[in-house]
């Protein structure tokens, strides 16, 4: 416990809350849980999200879906790029938070990689259709083409140990493809995620496109996995047993399920991400029309 020196100044601390529908509410359950730094010292009380919070987040994500998926790809790309600009502006804050959360001396390069990752996905928004779509030479007098479209509402369990780079690596592809997201932050390191939500809230990203929950993953995730208005599930942040349980629940409405590596290993988030995560949350729509005069 540090005491203030005579003539010194007391820090204004931040209240870390949920991010739902563009607002920052506390959990409706009124619960919170202490978050500690890698060295065990107290950092903050984070909101402990509940089933009701998860459902509110899905409602917000569904409501935001027509607008976000219907925006032009160029517009989505610009909004996402704007997020990268805001990240850059808060670089020092993220470095401090990642260092505290992960106890790493590499926080600066992690934040740099995070910003670059976001820029990479921002640039994808208006390339996806050309790369994943096709014109189909059918054997008849028809014009036939296939376009990638966003899957819908995606529930994302953020990686457990990479609190910022990992989070951005799983969230940005969902957004670039035009889907909206309900993210459950890393349970023990949620603070960089909440600060990211503050960046999203000030980056022209429409409210509800990203909704962020903090709390106990094992408590919140089953409600999302079984939710009938969730279209896809990214299980990267779930351990093997939980992931299997959630995968089973996801079958109730044929959710698209993206499973991370088995055995609890964390992927190398600095590696080239490829297009696999982009493709995971895209549908393909084929349109036929006759040719004639």
């Amino acid at each position, binding site marked *: 416990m540090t005491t203030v020196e005579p003539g010194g100044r007391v820090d204004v601390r931040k209240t870390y809350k949920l991010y739902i529908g563009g607002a920052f509410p506390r959990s409706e359950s009124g619960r919170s849980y202490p978050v500690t730094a890698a060295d065990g010292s107290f950092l903050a009380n984070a909101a402990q999200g509940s089933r009701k919070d998860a459902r509110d987040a899905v409602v917000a994500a569904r409501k935001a879906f027509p607008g976000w998926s219907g925006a032009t790809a160029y517009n989505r790309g610009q909004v996402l790029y704007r997020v990268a600009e805001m990240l850059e502006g808060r670089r020092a804050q993220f470095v401090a938070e990642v260092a505290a959360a992960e106890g790493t001396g590499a926080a600066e390069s992690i934040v740099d990689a995070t910003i670059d990752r976001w820029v990479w996905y921002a640039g994808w928004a208006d390339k996806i259709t050309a790369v994943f779509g096709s014109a189909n030479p059918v054997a008849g007098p028809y014009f036939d083409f296939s376009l990638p479209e966003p899957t819908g509402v995606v529930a994302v369990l953020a990686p457990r140990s990479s609190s910022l780079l990992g989070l951005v690596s799983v969230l940005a592809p969902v957004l670039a493809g035009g889907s909206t997201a309900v993210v459950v932050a890393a349970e023990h390191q949620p603070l960089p995620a909440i600060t990211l939500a503050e960046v999203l809230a000030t980056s022209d990203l429409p409210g509800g496109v990203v909704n962020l929950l903090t709390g106990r993953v094992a408590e919140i995730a089953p409600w999302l996995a079984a939710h009938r208005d969730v279209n896809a599930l990214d299980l990267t942040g779930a351990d093997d047993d939980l992931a299997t349980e959630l995968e089973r629940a*996801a079958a109730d409405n*044929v959710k698209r399920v993206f*499973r991370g590596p088995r055995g609890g290993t964390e992927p190398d988030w600095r590696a080239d991400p490829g297009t*696999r995560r982009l493709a995971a949350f895209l549908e393909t729509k084929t*349109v*036929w*029309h006759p040719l004639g005069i």
Partner: protein
Amino acid sequence: MPTWEYAPAPEARETARLRESYGMFIDGEFVDGDGERMKTVNPADEAVLAEVPVAGPSDVDRAVAAARRAYEQVWAPLPGRERAKYLFRIARAIQERGRELAVLESLDNGKPIKESRDVDVPLAAAHFFYYAGWADKLRHAGLGPDPRPIGVAGQVIPWNFPLLMAAWKLAPALATGNTCVLKPAETTPLTALVLAEICQQAELPPGVVNVLPGAGETGAALVAHPGVDKVAFTGSTEVGKQIQRNLAGTGRRLSLELGGKAANIIFDDAALDQAVEGIVNGIFFNQGHVCCAGSRLLVQESIADTVLDLLRDRLGTLRLGDPLDKNTDIGAINSAAQLARIRELTAAGEAEGAHRWSPPCQLPDRGFWFPPTVFTGVSQAHRIAREEIFGPVLSVLTFRTPAEAVEKANNTPYGLSAGVWTEKGSRILWMAQRLRAGVVWANTFNRFDPASPFGGYKESGFGREGGRHGLAPYLADEAEEAGA
């Protein structure tokens, strides 16, 4: 309208080269297997066509083991250009034996010969021909720099397009270097077994394709088999969900092509004669045994009466009867069980207050038959507007604005297909963009092509069949293996 009499014009049944008994196909040989035998019947007259073995657990074990051996020792190491030539051979042999396959299909399934002859069989051949060409070009498919097969694919297919579904499953799997264990549907095993014979004729290495007839138990044993790396299923949403549930945590790859309840949307400016043909093709093609059938007609209120008058007139000209007759439009319902389901749902339609209509229609005395049926006065809450009937039953609803049409069309857990009929180009594209369905047919319906990706949104499944997209479900994900 004048009534036209048609003289019978049946295809010769002998063309099918029907045998009394068929074997299951394991490791390049036809064998009897360890289990019981079942009879497959002609749904048009309930006569037994042939006896077929039911594959039991030990047969599944043997087939999966054969597929594994073939995968490791022969098929995966074989250069793509060589795999391609086997697929080209199969495509050609399907063409050569096309009439035989068409007649056999109509006998076993009950579909009109003009459909099996003009749609099922040519498309099956085309599918092999199309994917044959991909086998040595996978690196150019935009699916990663070093596309590799997954391993052994367990594939379960339905009874509505028996040969065509077998082609949809086998061709992309083989082109990408996987080996296959295919389970045809309980009521329609015959053409898949002739396809196995074609694989023999093509000298496809033993074990690359295995065909296991049987019912749900055989399918369940196959998809749950630990030696299977990839599961592909086409069938009901209910069974699809069960498979997805059972595969949770196994790491096995899955693609699902499930049910549908497609809206076929007619605007007031549509070319009505063509639209009526599209409505008829949409729901009465293959007796409505089509997952992407246009089973919900959404017609703009101002033209509803006109469209229904035209539709009733047109339905009066459809000929229902002998599937082998070249003039037949509507064949037999595939099975007693399916007929019972159609009857149950149509009874529910009446009980819930919708108005039922069928054209005057003489049903044969024997076999499984159901007349083309149209329900009007249907609300979105009715079971016949929500549940997949999988029969020749059309539910008619109306709408006033394009936005209402979109709202109603998307108001279903399914998302396989949709139809839009309007002469206004911008409206077609506007509608196509908003319909949450994997295939949108604009001013046409029920078109299929091996070059065209097909598959569902939402509870209609995931993964695509056809086109470049159809390769992806059969390629290993490098990133996955690398741990990202």
